[in-house]
């Protein structure tokens, strides 16, 4: 943001001249400001303004007060929802990582048609709506769905098991829905690792698995970290999947917010919940980004 931190202009016209100066290689500061303006306007209009408004409601209505936050903290039910949300987000992140790493690794090894196939399997669901993918899981997990039929066919259970509307269903579906966000950053990190590193490791006496552990895995950590942040933060505020597949007795924070707004019409309290979630997300984002920068420093990337 050096544009804004530039030395204070002596006169308005001098400032304008400085803004418009271009050395022919880089665009002028004014040029880049103008280019960025639509994005910032849009973000301000659809993101910053509504959230500031909402957070204002949480402390200003019905009268200026912190009572709404007091309710969030004092009633253990809400703390439980928050803890559950955090736990599910952690679980989903772990599972996503577990399933995504091998896929990303396979993508770096694959060539031609195989690569196209894997990429399609990763990207096609990614491009379809979350709603569609969640609905697909609802079909699979319903009482007479494919999963229950399969379980009975294998003789694992004699009658249909309740799969839908459980926390398990939410975790499974969210893991599936969020996998592309994990696969793509890890794939990017793995693809950036020159095959020469593996050759060097081999010639220095490392077996394939040892070379993976000692060289490939540590070098792919930046990708693992950014994928984890993406998945974790997305999972924290996930709405569609918990709303459609989750148990009403085991709500997550996004569904709770929605319930407060649409059913009890308690906007100030819903806003306070959003405030708490926002605080959590920001804190975690700050901590994670410090961790990532630390890793870059260690030489993960040029």
């Amino acid at each position, binding site marked *: 943001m050096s544009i804004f931190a530039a030395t204070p202009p002596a006169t308005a016209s001098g400032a304008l001249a400085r803004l418009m100066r271009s050395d022919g290689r880089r665009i002028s500061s004014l040029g880049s400001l103008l280019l960025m303006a639509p994005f910032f306007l849009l973000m301000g209009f659809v993101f910053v303004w509504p959230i500031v408004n909402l957070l204002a409601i949480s402390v200003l209505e019905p009268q200026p007060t912190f009572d709404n936050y007091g309710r969030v903290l004092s009633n253990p039910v809400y703390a439980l929802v928050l803890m559950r949300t955090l736990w599910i987000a952690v679980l989903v992140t772990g599972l996503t990582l577990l399933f995504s790493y091998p896929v990303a690794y396979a993508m770096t090894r694959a060539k031609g048609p195989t690569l196209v196939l894997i990429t399609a399997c990763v990207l096609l669901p990614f491009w379809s709506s979350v709603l569609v993918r969640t609905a697909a899981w609802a079909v699979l997990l319903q009482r007479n769905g494919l999963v229950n039929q399969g379980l009975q066919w294998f003789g694992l259970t004699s009658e249909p098991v309740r799969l839908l509307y459980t926390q398990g269903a939410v975790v499974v579906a969210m893991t599936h829905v969020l996998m592309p966000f994990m696969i793509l950053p890890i794939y990017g990190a793995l693809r950036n690792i*020159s095959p*020469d*590193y593996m*050759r*060097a*490791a*081999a*010639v*220095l*006496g*490392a*077996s394939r698995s*040892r*070379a993976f552990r*000692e*060289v490939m895995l*540590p*070098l792919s950590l930046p990708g693992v970290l950014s994928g984890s942040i993406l998945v974790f933060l997305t999972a924290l505020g996930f709405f569609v999947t918990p709303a459609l597949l989750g148990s009403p007795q085991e709500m997550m924070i996004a569904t709770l917010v929605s319930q407060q707004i649409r059913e009890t019409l308690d906007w100030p309290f819903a806003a306070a919940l959003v405030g708490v979630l926002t605080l959590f997300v920001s804190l975690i984002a700050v901590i994670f980004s410090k961790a990532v920068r630390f890793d870059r420093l*260690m*030489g*993960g990337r*040029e």
Partner: protein
Amino acid sequence: MKADAPRVASGANITIDGLAKRFGQVTAVDHFSVDIAAGEFLALLGPSGSGKTTVLMSIAGFEFPTEGSIRIGGEDVTYTPANRRNLGMVFQKYTLFPHLSVLDNVAFPLKMRGVSKPERHKRAEAALATVRLAGYGSRMPNQLSGGQQQRVALARAIVYHPRVLLMDEPLSALDKNLREEMQLEIKRLHSELGITVVFVTHDQAEALTMANRVAVLKDGRIQQIGPAPELYERPANLFTAGFIGEMNFLPGRLAAAGKTPSIKLDAGPEWRLPAAALIDTPSPGQSVVATVRPERVSLGSEGAAGAIPVRVQDVVYAGAAVLLIGVADCGTELRARLSGVSEVADLRPGDMAHLVVPPEAVLLYAGAAAA
């Protein structure tokens, strides 16, 4: 081999027999056989696509040959995986592990061999000292210059005392001064450790200065293998003649064979040559190519015996010598490196000049010069 065995001041001999490598329809290496003595420094020299890297990768164990065998120290390693060959290798790009400190990079091969941490750090320190980088252990690779990184790579390749050191164009990413410094460094290490070195390069000067023997490759086959002076003074064929150093190619016809063969040059004069000038054995009337190094060509007076009249195309000042480029009547270009500046001082492009060649500087090959 025990990793912490005392340093054995000898490398292993390498025997490559009938090596061939085909990728589908493409033959990268063919009929490649060479015996590399223990402690020898062999350079594989050739243009890109000549198969020199494939040979090195086969020795390293990254490529398995289609035919032939590779023995190192008497042991057949043709299909042994790279990590069990116990070879040292330095790559073109530094390939230091960016997430490990310099010391951990150098200690990496020892770690793979189960050497204890204090011991491997001690030995890594010692190896860093051998490449004159003592005290750099705690830095990260990206904090070092290119030359320093390559020296760390060298330390990492020798820290476990392999009997063979493979180098894949290790200096091509460095600038000229650093490259020359590293050449000396590698030569010094080679004589200190007595290790067998196989060095791949496309830089002929590098090959000639560093190696005991140079193998010239083209299209996957050895064109010539021998010590540097032999390659330069007596190239075995026209490819080597043109690939190593500068060379003039003068087409002509063999007029007479025998003890004092003579040729009629397209450029005019007829030369009588010593019998040793014949590399091939053409018969009279056949087309031949006479070759001569530009530094053996001198300026003669008009009418001098065997002089080739040329029209001066350019006179290039190059410090120690002046390069004269002339074109003979038949269109053949002739270059002369002349040490005396004064004798060409008044030659201008377009002037006539007469170039003389001592008969003992000429080598004769059968066939026509490749354009």
